[in-house]
């Protein structure tokens, strides 16, 4: 059970970071981004590209040769790449759509198309098979109660630090406040002098960078796959919805809960021999919670009028 709790914490931190990113974007732009998973995968794939040894040829088609950089620098660069990708998406895709008054639902469908497109680009051009970061194998150690590899423990600590920083940034910086203002009303903020285009752009960049980080976490703990983002996308949705979509802190907690729920549910008596269905438990819990609290645990009921 403790092992599963440890795994749960790890999965929780991944989903939590990714959920905050998704929720932030939704809060500001009202876009339910189905392509979020692909940005997560981009973080992992870019890191793999930057850090793999030069002679590592299994990964990419002959045309692309890995760079063989230091792992930490690779992660940093990969996060920048994700930010850039998110920014480009906003400028060349979502901003024009917004300017043409394309409705939220249409945009949602566009993100689904984008997700399918990008995911299969990964399959074709990046990684058709399961890959691992070029990191040494590590032995599990005991931290407090949990058996983990030092690397996984670092992910846990790094994740918690990132969450605290994101929380502080959102609460205290001008930018964070501005993001919340845009969330409350785009019209209002454009009247009061906040340039909502820039805020939305920054939100895309920030959300994508966080997503990329989540992808690096996930790939460090597990592995790199072309569809790794889509595989956990629903769990991220579950975390976001559970916490209350659009609320950053709710998404943090919701994401953690989903992660722990998924891993701990493996140990439940009725789940014996059904470990594969662990995601189903988390998704079912999400649906149940929505039954009683459609706005999520921490979300506020929107005023109708």
């Amino acid at each position, binding site marked *: 059970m403790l092992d599963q709790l440890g795994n749960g914490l790890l999965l929780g931190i991944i989903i939590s970071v990714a959920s905050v990113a998704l929720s932030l974007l939704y809060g500001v732009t009202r876009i*339910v981004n189905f392509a979020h998973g692909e940005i997560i995968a981009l973080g992992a794939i870019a890191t793999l590209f930057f850090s793999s040894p030069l002679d590592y040829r299994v990964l990419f088609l002959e045309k692309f040769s890995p760079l063989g950089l230091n792992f930490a620098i690779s992660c940093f660069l990969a996060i920048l790449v994700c930010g850039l990708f998110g920014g480009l998406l906003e400028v060349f895709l979502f901003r024009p759509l917004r300017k043409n*008054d394309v*409705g*939220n639902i249409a945009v949602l469908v*566009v993100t689904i198309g984008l997700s*399918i497109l990008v995911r299969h680009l990964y399959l*074709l051009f990046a990684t058709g098979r399961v890959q691992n970061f070029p990191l040494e194998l590590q032995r599990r150690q005991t931290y407090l109660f949990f058996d983990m590899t030092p690397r996984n423990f670092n992910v846990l600590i790094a994740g918690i630090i990132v969450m605290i920083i994101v929380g502080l940034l959102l609460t205290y910086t001008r930018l964070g406040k501005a993001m919340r203002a845009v969330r409350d009303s785009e019209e209002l903020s454009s009247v009061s002098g906040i340039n909502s285009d820039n805020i939305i752009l920054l939100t895309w960049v920030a959300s994508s960078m966080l997503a990329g980080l989540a992808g690096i976490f996930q790939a460090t703990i597990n592995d790199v796959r072309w569809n790794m983002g889509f595989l956990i996308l629903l769990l991220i949705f579950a975390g976001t919805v559970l916490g209350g979509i659009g609320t950053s802190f709710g998404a943090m907690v919701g994401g953690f809960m989903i992660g722990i729920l998924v891993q701990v549910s493996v140990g439940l008596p009725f789940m014996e021999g059904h470990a594969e*269905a662990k995601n189903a438990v988390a998704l079912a819990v*999400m649906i149940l919670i929505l039954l009683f609290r459609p706005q999520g645990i921490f979300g506020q009921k929107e005023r109708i009028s």
Partner: protein
Amino acid sequence: MITKRFSLQFIFALSISIFSIYLVFFLNPDGAIRILLNLVTFAGIYGLSAIGLNVHFGWTGLLNFGHASFMGVGAYVTLLLMPHAAGREGVVVTTGLPFFVALIIGILAAALFGLLLGLPAIRLRGDYLAIVTIAAAEIFRLLVRDLESITGGVYGIINYTENFQKYRPSFIDELSDNLGFSASQGWVCLAAWISIFFTVLFLKRLSKSPWGRALRAVREDEDAVRAMGKNAVWLKLQSFMLGAGIAGLSGVLLAFNYGSLESTVFIPLLTFYVWAIMILGGVGTITGPIFGSIIFWVIISETDRLAYLLFENANGQQLAGVRFLLVGVLIMFLMIFRPSGLLGKKEELLLDVK
């Protein structure tokens, strides 16, 4: 005015469809009939499913992204009620209901599943509904995969096609001998298009009726519907059940077309395929998805040529990858540049659905 433009669109869609089919002959000088039959069968089955989805989204404005599960419920319930073999060991079940009884129960089960899923989900706002339906579909798929003792899990269900093929009319066998296609697929194809024919008739009757009108009102503004004394939730549930039932029927046909059934058939990508077909054909139209489906499947089945252009030695995974990639592009571009699809009316564009 409107009717005139509409019929022009209709002719346009029809010609594109015919041209697409011609393209298949042009691109496949050998064995065109076999390829065409395969394509038309899939087009019929997916088109039927898209017609069901259109009841949800096009008529009622419900963002259903769990369509695959409705197809799955229909397929699994029907197959499991008939003689079949399931699982790794191929546990044989020799007793069961006759095909048509099982089919009807399967369709009803799909509709019931729609109701069951609808009850918690239907009060939710559009984007929440999208998330909940896709999540529910995944729960369904994971459960089916996991309940190996009943559903055969990843090993699937086999030996069920005879239940349906024994009703095959003899003229299909004669045709298949002459033209060199699979007789059993020919029968599935015919059944799919007969189903489409009657579903379209049925929906045509409903769409202009007071009930269809009420669904469209729900799509436009739920609050106003309530203010007029109409139970919007019940209307949405009815729409959910009808669309799910149609999807269930298409799921059964899909199972007979494959000849064996396992849970991976019902991954979310299946739903996205159906969405692409619906948007391509025209959201809110009745016959649009038929044309959308034909064109979609011509594109899909001819992409291997495209894949060979991109990759010198394309393997199966890459071929499939190019296909899916194209589906993604199709969905995006249609939604951005032609959201009304082939047959949709500009005035009824669903761009600003909340």
